């Protein structure tokens, strides 16, 4: 993806143009959906529990947090269609040919921000962030978060802010490239860059997961970094000091809903600043042949001023989940470290 500043502006301009040009045909199409009303009975495993098994996608263009100033959780079919068309138009625009006589990009960087890091990342065709607005209970949603009512992650507590400052102070004087273990867990291929719990889409690629059930365990394999969460049915959490990479998950059934509670998260990869006292409760409810309604509640009174809850549709997919073997081909990690050493030599800043 070319994350240049001009392209960021083009995105906004393009979305605005698309808003005015939404195709009536597409609007009509969505006015008819979603109306799948075939008789359906819950598939069940041999022990009588709802069968959640198979591959699912949580990809969507609905953001985790609602845009500032938008008050409604529910969008009209027309609004949803226009957002989807704007997304499709943007991809089409980024598919357009480049100038074969283009020069090298600008000296000093191309102005791209974020992970694109002023060097422009890579082409958009590598990405697969989702194409559709999330639909839950027949409603087009403007945010995945449904509570608080503003659809946004609640403010952090003073305690959490003090903790973040203390962490920065402890890191002062240590270069972020001075040791492999100072690099982020995702860069080290240990976990995905998205959260493993709750199962929020990463808005980038590979938003697929596979569920496998036995009477006493449920396994959730996420395509990204091939992370497999193992949920024990019943029992209690492990001791507080034990911190598995993806936390400690225990589940139980409430009627036909699988409820999973996860605590004991590792401190190295916090979710929105929460880790040590983070508790995530997930509810998996299969609502038709092609959908699991997934609801999650995030609690950590030492980080968030109040709990928050979101809903994501998991759509059945017959796409294959591919292996995401990360470590074996991770040139990036050594490039980052050797780059820092080489740059120190060139700039005469060697420690």
């Amino acid at each position: 993806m070319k994350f240049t500043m001009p392209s960021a502006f083009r995105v906004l301009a393009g979305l605005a143009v698309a808003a005015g040009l939404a195709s009536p045909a597409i609007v009509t199409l969505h006015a008819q959906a979603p109306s799948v009303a075939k008789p359906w009975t819950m598939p069940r495993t041999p022990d009588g529990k709802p069968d959640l098994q198979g591959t699912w996608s949580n990809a969507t263009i609905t953001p985790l947090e609602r845009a500032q100033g938008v008050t409604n959780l529910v969008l009209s079919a027309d609004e949803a269609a226009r957002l989807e068309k704007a997304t499709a138009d943007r991809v089409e625009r980024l598919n357009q040919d480049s100038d074969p006589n283009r020069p090298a990009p600008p000296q000093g960087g191309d102005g791209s921000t974020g992970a694109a890091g002023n060097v422009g990342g890579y082409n958009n065709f590598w990405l697969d962030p989702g194409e559709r607005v999330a639909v839950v209970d027949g409603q087009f949603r403007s945010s995945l978060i449904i509570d608080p009512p503003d659809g946004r992650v609640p403010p952090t507590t003073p305690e959490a802010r003090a903790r973040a400052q203390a962490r920065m102070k402890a890191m002062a004087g240590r270069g972020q490239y001075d040791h492999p273990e100072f690099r982020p867990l995702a860069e080290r291929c240990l976990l995905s860059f998205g959260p493993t719990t709750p199962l929020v889409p990463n808005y980038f690629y590979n938003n697929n997961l596979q569920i496998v059930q036995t009477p006493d365990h449920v396994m959730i394999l996420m395509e990204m970094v091939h992370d497999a969460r193992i949920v024990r049915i019943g029992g209690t959490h492990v001791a507080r000091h034990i911190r598995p990479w993806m936390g400690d998950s225990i589940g139980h059934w409430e009627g036909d809903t699988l409820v999973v509670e996860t605590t004991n998260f590792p401190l190295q990869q916090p979710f929105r600043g929460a880790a040590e006292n983070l508790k995530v409760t997930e509810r998996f409810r299969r609502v038709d042949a092609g959908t699991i309604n997934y609801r999650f509640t995030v609690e950590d009174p030492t980080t968030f001023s109040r709990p928050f809850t979101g809903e994501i549709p998991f759509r059945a997919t017959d796409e294959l989940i591919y292996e995401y073997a990360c470590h074996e081909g991770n040139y990036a990690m050594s490039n980052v470290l050797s780059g820092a050493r080489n740059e120190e030599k060139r700039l005469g800043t060697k420690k």
Partner: protein
Amino acid sequence: MNTRTTFGVLLLGAGLLLAGRSVIAHHAFGAEFDPNAPIRLQGKVVRLEWVNPHTWIHIETIKDGKPEIWMIEGGTPNTLLRRGVTRETVKVGTEIIVDGYQTKDHSLKRANGRDVTFTDGRKLFMGSSGTGAPKDGRDPTEAPKKPGGR
């Protein structure tokens, strides 16, 4: 807030979201590549590493009459595999143009594939716009999906 204003805000939100995507990725590009070392390369593909976390396309370029092998970083191959694009899709010997930035380690001939195209400017691959290719069962022409992977 009237409907038009609401939708304008929504679009702005979507735009920010798209821009915000650059916040996450397997690694920060600025940590690996040097904004002060822009490059434009043209050469023939000699090898494809169709691997995670990043695809690497090896090309042979000619500098001062001598061949050089450059490695170009792309994204995850998984998304392209799902569209039917494999390592065999781009044949060894295909000539391509790449613009990007060299790694901060200047002893390496590696760069990010900021824009990778054929020599006529066409993108090496196509992104999926979703038009005509939905995966969520909301297109009435699409057969209802059941979860695979069973």
